[in-house]
């Protein structure tokens, strides 16, 4: 069972309220969900929609073909009608009857406005709609009531209760949907929230950022929980301040983090180099949206990779990793802090709007799997005399201490090229040794990176290569094309830099055709692969319209180049 539903309308009409409540009801009904959001950069008006795909087995991506359209306005019908499957239904208020032109058997008109009015508050329209959908999707009204109890209080709860029943009692047929067999408890979370939760598990006590879509939900989650977690979340005056504050906090010995989107990341570029040359551990999240400049503020793209790989003038070590699922976002964020402190280096977490706003139902995170390794030196680890922040050691990592904790020892960090004490130097010899020391970390990081996930059977003739948020779509595409008899497989990369090359080289060797799948214009990941391995792709599937590639689109694009 795999049901795909779209809720559309203009901003401010209540589609998010309905979407959020319906998602919760479906989650509590033990369905697996994958939801995504398409919205405009405006607070009122325009056309926004949420897609909710649910079923009795795990779902990893969105798709185009719709079983139902839940329309708050006429635009929703005209925009999405072409995607409605045969036998699919449009549900909408009866007042829109004269405004739309579709065949009668495709539409279910409901007295929603009337129902809201009868209940005594036109604002409960969305909840009347929820009641009707609970009926249409053959869900349990009791679950709906429970969700309302968690959402509303007192008088508002009362009127919403009535609204829910009003909708549920409407005269409409139910779809015959297979009930989920697996009723294990699951969480429903998006990848930004999972990054934030992973950061909390890793012991982050300070997060500084400047609001920027689609990264803001990381800060919002941490802020919503800051009081209980006893941490500090600070809205900086700009992204330059945000990253410099985080660097200062990390220098002083705590786990600090910052996050932003492309434009803000551009402003942070100089400070990335500061973290690099001062060897201050730092974790930065960049949740991508289409650029350049302001670009498409609320839409999705994977076009910051080339920039992220080299952002900052000069040369520094860094690890770059991208999210493919919320599970990974949680565990990898926690890992990022350990790696950043182990090697006193920069770790950049990448995500994009698509995954940042996509709710998925998954197994709860296992907090016992998270380990906090700080790699902070004590007095006993240090030679006598003045502390040297940048002392040359055998493994290239200088013992790091916390300023203020050891009487007689002071810590000097410097953005100039410096000697072992941290003092400014002009020495050619010291420069070479310091550059070698800092850049050698790339070798150690290359040992830490994880190989990509392989999807498919051994040695496929056609190999798709993607990274990050396209994982779910690659996976389903391979499954479907395999069933159609194609010899096809895919590699989905999470750790990007240093580039893990072992599995890539193996799989490429056996393949007749290799195709990169990316949400950008220039094939940025293909460029990285070519740079690091010399491997060149036979074809590219590139999408840069700000919308995530859907299952059907990818299948069609792959077939075109077969």
């Amino acid at each position, binding site marked *: 069972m795999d049901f795909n539903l779209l809720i559309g309308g203009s901003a401010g009409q209540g589609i998010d309220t309905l979407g959020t409540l319906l998602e919760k009801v479906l989650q509590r009904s033990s369905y697996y969900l994958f939801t995504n959001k398409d919205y405009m950069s405006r607070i009122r008006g325009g056309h926004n929609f949420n897609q909710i795909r649910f079923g009795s087995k795990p779902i990893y991506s969105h798709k185009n073909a719709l079983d139902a359209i839940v329309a708050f306005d006429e635009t929703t019908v005209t925009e999405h009608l072409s995607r409605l499957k045969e036998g699919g239904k449009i549900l909408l208020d009866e007042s829109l009857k004269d405004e739309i032109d579709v065949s009668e058997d495709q539409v279910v008109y409901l007295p929603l406005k009337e129902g809201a009015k009868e209940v005594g508050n036109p604002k409960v329209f969305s909840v009347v709609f929820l009641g009707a959908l609970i009926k249409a999707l053959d869900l349990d009204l009791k679950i709906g009531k429970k969700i309302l109890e968690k959402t509303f209080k007192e008088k508002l709860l009362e009127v919403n209760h009535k609204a829910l029943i009003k909708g549920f009692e409407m005269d409409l047929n139910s779809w015959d949907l297979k009930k989920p067999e697996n009723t294990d408890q699951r*969480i429903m979370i998006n990848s930004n*929230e999972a990054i934030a*939760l992973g950061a*909390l*598990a890793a*012991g982050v*006590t*300070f997060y500084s950022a400047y609001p920027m879509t689609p990264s803001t939900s990381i800060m919002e989650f941490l802020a919503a929980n*800051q*009081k*209980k*977690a*006893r941490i*500090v979340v*600070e809205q*900086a*005056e*700009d992204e*330059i*301040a*945000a990253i*410099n*504050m*985080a*660097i*200062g*906090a*990390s*220098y*002083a*010995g*705590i786990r*600090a983090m910052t996050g932003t989107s492309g434009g803000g990341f551009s402003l942070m570029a100089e*400070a990335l180099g*500061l973290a690099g040359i*001062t060897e201050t551990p730092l974790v930065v999240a960049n949740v991508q949206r289409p650029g350049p400049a302001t670009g498409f503020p609320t839409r999705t793209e994977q076009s910051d990779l080339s920039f992220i790989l080299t952002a900052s003038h000069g040369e520094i070590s860094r690890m770059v990793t991208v999210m493919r699922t919320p599970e990974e976002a949680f565990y990898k964020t*926690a890992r990022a802090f350990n790696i950043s402190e182990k090697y006193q280096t920069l770790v950049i977490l990448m995500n994009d709007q698509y995954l940042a706003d996509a709710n998925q139902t998954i197994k*709860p*995170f296992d*907090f*016992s799997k*998270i380990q*906090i390794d700080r790699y902070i030196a004590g007095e006993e680890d240090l030679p006598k005399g003045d502390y040297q922040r940048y002392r040359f050691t055998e493994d290239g990592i200088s013992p790091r201490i*916390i*300023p*203020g*904790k050891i*009487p*007689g*020892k*002071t*810590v*000097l*960090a*410097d*953005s*100039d090229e410096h000697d072992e004490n*941290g*003092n*400014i130097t002009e020495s050619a010899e010291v420069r070479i040794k310091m550059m070698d020391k800092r850049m050698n970390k790339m070798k150690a990081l290359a040992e830490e990176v994880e190989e990509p996930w392989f999807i498919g059977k051994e040695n496929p003739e056609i190999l798709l290569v993607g990274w990050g948020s396209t994982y779910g779509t690659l996976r389903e595409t391979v499954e479907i094309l395999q069933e159609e008899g194609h010899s096809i497989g895919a590699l989905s990369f999470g750790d990007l830099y240093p580039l893990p090359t072992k599995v890539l080289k193996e799989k490429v060797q056996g393949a007749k055709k290799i195709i990169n799948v990316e949400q950008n214009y220039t094939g940025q990941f293909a460029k990285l692969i070519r740079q690091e391995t010399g491997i060149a792709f036979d074809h590219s599937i590139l999408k840069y319209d700000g919308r995530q590639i859907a299952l059907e689109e990818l299948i069609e694009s792959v077939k075109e180049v077969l």
Partner: protein
Amino acid sequence: MDQQNLFDCSEEKAWCPGCGNHGLLEGIKQALQELGKEPHQVVVASGIGQAAKLPHYIKANGFNGLHGRAIPPAVGIKIANPDLTVIIHSGDGDSYGEGGNHFLHNVRRNMDITHFVHDNQIYGLTKGQASPTSRPGHVTGIQTEGVILQPFNPIATAISLGCGFVARTFMGDREHMVEIMKAAIKHRGYALVDIFQPCVVFNKINTFKWYKDHVYKLEEDYDPGDKVAAFQKSLEFDDGIPIGIIYKEDRPPFLDTIEYLSEEKPLVDRDLDPKNAEEFMDQFY
């Protein structure tokens, strides 16, 4: 010569002979010593510029960051560990030009840090261009017809934003400077001290003598609690520049305003345990 000071450091100074920074450095060392501080308890943060080299010449923790970005790391350091005494030494270009936005918003943020601005009204490190505090008409290699822009008034700006400690002093009057420095460090909240110092190479107008002739100490009965009077004082310049604590107002520093932290250990002393975060997953069921 100065007596042995805990904060003495043997690093060779890259400042010109006669530069005002030398006296300023001796002053801050004296102030810290007289306040009973020890080197490991102090962090000196700076940006980039001649003044910003100061962390290298003092025995203390130091964070010499990016141009214009002296304040944000200092803020992060103080949030992480409020037990540290965090002071900033940076120039007028770094503090008021490149870092102007941080200056404005950190007056508002009121973190308990002290900001000493070495104000020589010129860019020293880049060899003599106008700074935000250069006066109109000042001819430089770039401002060949003289500075056109109106000078930035840090004292008036800080007062208008509600800064709790606004002072000005002159490095040529060591006693005055050290007393102001000590009062600023003791102040709980963001404290701005604009310190006149001559640039002997690039500023031929605002020389040691010029400053000496132009500054005057605030009258004995001056009340730094009167905001309107303070603002009036902040506008005096060409006919005499007042030095001293121009405005003072006690308001709770940033960390004191976060009630839920009041009973907690500093962030740097927290025991970290992933299990503590598990309860935050509940909202996703």
